């Protein structure tokens, strides 16, 4: 089972910046700037980067929550950005999305059981009579109790709401789930519960995850391969072990060294990055990272590095590698 489920080719998503009385477009925020990768069935790809690097936008554009600017997203060989609305709706259950904020992603006025079950009914995947049973089954799988069916979202803690969000995606029997920082809003003890739940579900149902996160320790735990994004572009992508043992891009190295390690006896060589992340509306010329790069050369300021394969399944965009 190693067939390709998702193929992203040169995907771009620009948001126009409008200004003035006539709302003229005066520029673009290049949230996603030409990213490409493929995903195999059953794998978990981690998409990491700092805030504003476009990782969430990428996740949303991939399942066509946002319309693309350019490029292709092939899901099982079909370009989902070319599908007519009816076909797209039919495909929706197969591609699901779990949101970061378990508070605003649930309608406060809809009971949990109904929130989980409504899409199944709406898609006609299940008769009204069976629906309750089906929801109860999913609740159980996600570690929730039957009596939770008739409750409202505000009666749940953050971790439980995230379970509800997962249950809502799971009941549609998806193949592919985009997990957008699913544990970032949760406490450590709850975070571990949700991560284990996600791993279990993946094994049981052969799910494919696109795991968006800024937390490298979580990514190392759950992902089989990792792509690092900076200002809308993927700067490095490799299998998990390769990336964490042998990071090549200076940004990846800096990111890894910046993660605090919960062991006071370890003191590490830390790479400090200068300054802040530039605005994606006006990214630097040449290599986008050169303004903060500790090893930037003259060439980096003028020439855009090519994203190329440097080792088995190891891609990087840097002149110095």
């Amino acid at each position: 089972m190693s067939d390709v489920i998702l193929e992203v080719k040169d995907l771009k998503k620009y948001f126009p910046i409008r200004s003035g009385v006539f709302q003229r477009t005066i520029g673009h925020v290049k949230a996603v700037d030409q990213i490409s990768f493929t995903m195999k069935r059953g794998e978990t790809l981690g998409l990491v980067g700092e805030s504003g690097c476009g990782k969430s936008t990428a996740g949303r554009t991939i399942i066509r929550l946002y319309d693309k600017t350019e490029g292709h997203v092939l899901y099982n060989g079909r370009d989902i950005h070319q599908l007519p609305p009816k076909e797209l709706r039919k495909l929706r259950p197969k591609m699901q999305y779990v949101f970061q904020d378990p508070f605003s992603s649930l309608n406060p006025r809809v009971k949990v059981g109904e929130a989980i079950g409504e899409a199944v009914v709406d898609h006609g995947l299940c008769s009204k009579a069976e629906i309750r049973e089906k929801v109860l089954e999913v609740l159980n799988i996600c570690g929730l109790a039957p009596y939770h069916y008739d409750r409202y979202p505000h009666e749940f803690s953050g971790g439980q709401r995230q379970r509800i969000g997962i249950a809502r995606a799971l009941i549609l029997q998806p193949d592919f789930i985009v997990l957008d920082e699913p544990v970032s809003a949760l406490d450590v003890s709850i975070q571990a519960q949700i991560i284990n739940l996600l791993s279990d579900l993946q094994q049981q149902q052969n799910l494919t995850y696109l795991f968006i996160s800024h937390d490298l320790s979580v990514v190392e735990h759950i992902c089989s391969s990792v792509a690092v994004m900076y200002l809308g572009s993927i700067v490095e992508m490799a299998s998990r072990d390769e990336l964490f043992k042998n990071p090549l891009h200076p940004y990846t190295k800096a990111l890894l060294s910046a993660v605090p390690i919960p062991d006071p006896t370890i003191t590490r060589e830390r790479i400090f990055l200068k300054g802040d992340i530039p605005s994606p509306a006006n990214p630097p010329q040449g290599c986008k990272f050169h303004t903060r790069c500790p090893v930037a050369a003259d060439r980096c300021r003028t020439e855009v590095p090519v994203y190329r394969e440097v080792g088995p399944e190891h891609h990087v965009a840097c002149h110095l590698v």
Partner: protein
Amino acid sequence: MSSTLVEFRNLKTYFYTEAGVVQAVNDVSFSIRAGETVCIVGESGCGKSITAMSLMRLIASPPGKIVGGEILFEGRDLLKIKESEMRMIRGNEIAMIFQEPMTSLNPVLTVGDQIMEPLIEHTLLSKSEARKKAIQLIEQVGIPRADQIIDSYPHELSGGMRQRIMIAISLSCDPKLLIADEPTTALDVTIQAQILDLLRQLKKDRNMSLMLITHDLGVVAEMADYVVVMYAGKVIEEGPVKEIFKNPRHPYTKGLLLAKPVIGQRKERLFTIPGQVPNPIGLGENCHYSDRCEHAMDICRASQPALQKDGADSKVACWLYEGEGAK
């Protein structure tokens, strides 16, 4: 060790809500020594921020109220002094920075105005002197082009820059204690590394104490000299940082350390602490962790363990180390 700067003695801060009384901080005692970094660790709702707000006497009342205990700052009980005296201590001797650098700066004032304000208020500097000092402070927190930045507005700065400005404001009157409430939670890892480094540096240069509130054990390991672990309004364990990480005593502390994935130490499966943090309303007389604890005994469900000395400089509140469980 050096002298004690702050001592919390049996602090109790309750919130009186529609649904019942929340014992947000319930009988908390620990101390912070001069020049030391104390980290308060715990999950959301454990009372770590409320403890800090109680020290600043910034609990909104109603619904909150400090119902008991003492907070000694250099021997003076802060809960007994007048509001006017407290105002002199706030910002002057104890300063505080918050999690959200976006909302804790006033958007309609320039950065310089906001740094100069406490200077003029507390140190009686003239306006031009205050401006000079403000530029110095901005340079000290590692922002280049300080003379330009001083006239910019908060929205023109990034999150990391704003947090630096907040730190500059808090340092303006040379406080003896800086309280940092999740100072890096809203920031990216590379920026977090910068800010933590800055705080460490400033603490060393100025020999001030740092009370760092965080939920991130990685931050604790990097910053702390001494760690206080809180759960459901109570201190359940405290000790020197190496002791806490090498030899955690309380099952909750152990669980937290095991549940966190660590780079380079990948496990097939994460350890989990079952269940949820208990509802803070109507907590019983049992050990609040007993419902989630794998070692829970009958006594844990019946009565609360006291915070007891265990080892040279550590304390733990758990029946496993007391009475019949201590075998």
